[in-house]
C-alpha cells in the first residue's frame, strides 16, 4: 500500500507579531513549522503503513520547506518530494492542489492521500476537496477516525454540534483529517542525524509538465490593509411610544428580544424585498442609505 501525505510549511502562530498600526505581520520574527493537522496526518500514515507499504511526503513550498520534509523522513517517511518554482508566490489552494496532483502523478499514483484538513495560516480547508477534483477520486473531509476494512476505508466524520457520521470510501481516496488526533512520533537520534543533509528532490513546473498559463487564475490583489474594526451596531433604546410597563420591560431585557419572525405574505416581490432590506437596516445588518 502506498500512502502519500501532503505537508504544509506554515508560520508558527506563537511567533507571529502583528504591527498594531498597519495590521501587517512582522515577517522578520516569524518562525515556520509543519502544519499541526498535517503532522497528525503523517503520524497516522506511519501507523497505517503495512510492512510492504510506503509513505511518501509532499510539500509545495520554498527551499526552507526542505527542513520539514527532512523531519518527516527522520520520523520514518520513506521518500519526500518538494514542488516549487521561483515564479510562484503566494499560492491559492486551487494552484497548490494542481501542483500537488501533478506531483502525485510523477511516480505511480498512491492508494491513499492523507491531508491535514485545515492549515493554521489560511485555513480554507479546501485542499482535500480540490485535490480530489483534480484526481477525480472520492474524498472524505473532517475525518476524526479511519479504519481499513477489506480494501475499503471506513471513516468517521465530524459534523456540526458534536454529531458524527460514519461512511465508507473506496480506494484510491483522499482523506482530510482533523488536527490534534495524534502526536507525531519523536525521531531517533541516528535518523535525525542521517536526514540533516539528505537532499530533497525538487520538481519545478517543467518537471511536472505544467506551464505558467496552466496555473493562471484571476489573481487576488491586496488593495489595502486596515486594522480590524468592530461592526457598527445599532444601540438599543426603548420605544418611547410604549407604556411605562412596556418600556421597563424593554430596559430590563437589555434589548435582548426573543427572535420574532414575520412572514411577508402580501405585496409584490419588489415590495417584499424592500421590506426585508428595511428590516435588515433596522437591525444594523445593512448600512443606512447615505
Amino acid at each position, binding site marked *: 500500500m502506498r500512502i502519500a501525505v501532503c505537508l504544509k510549511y506554515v508560520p508558527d502562530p506563537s511567533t507571529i507579531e502583528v504591527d498594531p498600526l498597519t495590521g501587517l505581520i512582522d515577517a522578520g520574527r516569524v518562525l515556520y513549522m509543519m502544519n499541526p493537522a498535517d503532522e497528525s496526518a503523517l503520524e497516522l500514515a506511519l501507523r497505517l503503513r503495512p510492512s510492504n507499504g510506503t509513505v511518501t511526503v509532499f510539500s509545495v513550498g520554498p527551499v526552507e520547506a526542505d527542513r520539514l520534509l527532512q523531519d518527516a523522513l527522520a520520523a520514518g517517511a520513506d521518500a519526500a518530494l518538494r514542488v516549487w518554482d521561483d515564479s510562484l508566490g503566494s499560492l491559492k489552494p486551487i494552484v497548490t492542489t494542481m501542483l500537488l496532483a501533478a506531483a502525485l502523478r510523477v511516480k505511480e499514483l498512491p492508494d491513499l492521500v492523507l491531508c491535514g484538513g485545515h492549515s493554521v495560516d489560511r485555513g480554507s480547508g479546501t485542499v482535500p476537496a480540490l485535490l480530489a477534483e483534480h484526481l477525480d477520486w472520492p474524498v472524505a473531509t473532517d475525518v476524526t477516525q479511519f479504519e481499513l476494512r477489506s480494501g475499503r476505508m471506513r471513516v468517521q466524520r465530524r459534523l456540526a454540534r458534536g454529531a458524527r457520521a460514519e461512511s465508507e470510501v473506496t480506494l484510491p481516496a483522499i482523506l482530510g483529517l482533523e488536527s490534534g488526533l495524534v502526536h507525531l512520533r*519523536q525521531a*531517533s*537520534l*541516528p535518523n*535525525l*542525524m542521517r536526514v*540533516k543533509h539528505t537532499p530533497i528532490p525538487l520538481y519545478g513546473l517543467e518537471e511536472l509538465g505544467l506551464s505558467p498559463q496552466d496555473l493562471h487564475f484571476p489573481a487576488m490583489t491586496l488593495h489595502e490593509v486596515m486594522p480590524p474594526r468592530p461592526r457598527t451596531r445599532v444601540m438599543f433604546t426603548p420605544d418611547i411610544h410604549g407604556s411605562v410597563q412596556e418600556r421597563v420591560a424593554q430596559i430590563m431585557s437589555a434589548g435582548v428580544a426573543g427572535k420574532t419572525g414575520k412572514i411577508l405574505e402580501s405585496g409584490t416581490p419588489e415590495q417584499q424585498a424592500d421590506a426585508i432590506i428595511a428590516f435588515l437596516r433596522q437591525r444594523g445588518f445593512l448600512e443606512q442609505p447615505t
Partner: protein
Amino acid sequence: MTTHPANQQFDVIVVGAGPAGSAAALLAARAGLKVLLLERGEYPGAKNASGAVFYGSAILNELIPNWWEQAPVERHICRRDIAFMSPTTAVALDFRSAGVGFATAPYNGFTVLRPKFDRWLAAQAEAAGAFVLTSAVVDDVLREKGHIVGVRVRREQGEIYGKVVIACDGVNSFLAKKAGLQREFHPHELSLGVKEVIGLDPAIIQDRFHLTDNDGIAFEYLGAITEDVHGGAFLYTNRDSLSLGVIGQVSSLVERRKRPYELLERFKAHPAVAPLVRGGKLREYSAHLIPESGWAMKPKLYTDGMLVAGDAAGFCLAAGLYLEGMNYAMQSGLAAAETAIFACQKNNFSARVLAAYQKNLKQRHVSTDFRAYRHAPSFVNGPRLQNLYPEMVARGMEQIFRVDGTPKRKILPLTYRMVRQSTIKPGQLLRDVYQVARAYLW
C-alpha cells in the same frame, strides 16, 4: 577506546549553542575536527536569554573580521550610565565616548537580541563545518573506564560518542554536575534576571536617549530600585526596542518574599525610568538565572574527556562596574576548543592533557580577570553596596539641591547625619571603603 559507527563518532561534542558553544564549535571545525554542536531548543538561541550587551566585539572580530556587518546586531554602545536611586530620586554618572573603539570599529560592545544573534553565530559554526543538531536535549554523559566518551541525547538510540565533550550548557550545568565537576549552587550565589523587550520607534529612541544613528546606551541602576532585595536593574537600547530588566539575588528574593516581576513593574514606574519607556509596546518577556559569584562558584574545569565553558563554568563577571558574560563565555569556549585541538593532536584526552585548558584560559585573560575580581562579587552583590549606599547618594543629592528655607548644610555634616540615621556603623563604613578599594583599585 572502543570504536563506534562513523556517523556517531565525533572528535568534539559541544553541548549548548550559546556564545561559548558556538564559538568553540566554530574554532574546532575550522581546525578540521569533526564537530557536533547539540542544542536543546528548536533553533540555537530559542532558549537563551541575557541583558544583552555583547562586549566581545574585538574577540569575535579575530574569528570573523567585520562580523558586525553581517550579524544581527542592534546598536553599538558608546554611552554608559550608572544611576543611584532612591524611590523617588536618581543620580547618574554619564559616560559617553566618540573615541576609538567606542564609536568606531571594532566597537566596544553591541546590544543584541539573543535569539537572533545566537542563531547567527551557530550558523557560522555550521558554515565552518560543524554538525549542528537542534531539539536535542542531553541527559547524561557516557563513560568508559572512568573517561567521558560521549553524551546521551533524550531520543531513541541517543548515545553519541566524542573524544572531547565541551559542556556549554549554561548556568546550573547539568553536564558539569553529572560529570562530578560542579556542586549544587547556593541561592545566594545565583541571581534571577527578569527582562522585557519593549518596542519603540527608532526615531523616538534616538531623541529620547540623545543618540545618533546606530549609537546605543547601556543604563545600569543601583539602589532602592529592588527595595531590600540585593540586586540592580538595567536598560539597554536596541534598534527599535529597549531591553530592560531587574536582577535580584535568589536568596534575598526568597527571604523577602518578593516576586521579580513586581520589582520590574516598580522599576518601570520609577520617575527616572517611566519617561524612557513611555509609549512602548511589550514584545518579549524572559527570565534567566545568572551565576554571580564568579571565582567562588567556578567548578573543576576539566576531567578525563570533558571541558566546561561559559556560564556552566561560572564565567559571568557581575562585579558592580562590570556586567559581562557573553564575552567571557566566548573566550572560554575558544580556550576549550584550543585545548580540544591540542588533545586531538596528541591523541590523548586524559585530564593530564586537558589541563592545558587552564593555561589557555589564562592566555585569553579569563581566569586572570576572574581571579583579579574574586573579592568583588560577594561584597558588591551584598546589600550595602548594591542598595544602601546608592540610595544614600541619591537622598544626599536631594538634600543638597533642596532649597526650602532651612540652613544649608555642608556635605560632611550631611553625610555624618545620614550615616547616623541609617543602620550603618562608622566602622563598617570604613571597612566597606577598604573593600571597594581592594575590589577595584589594586
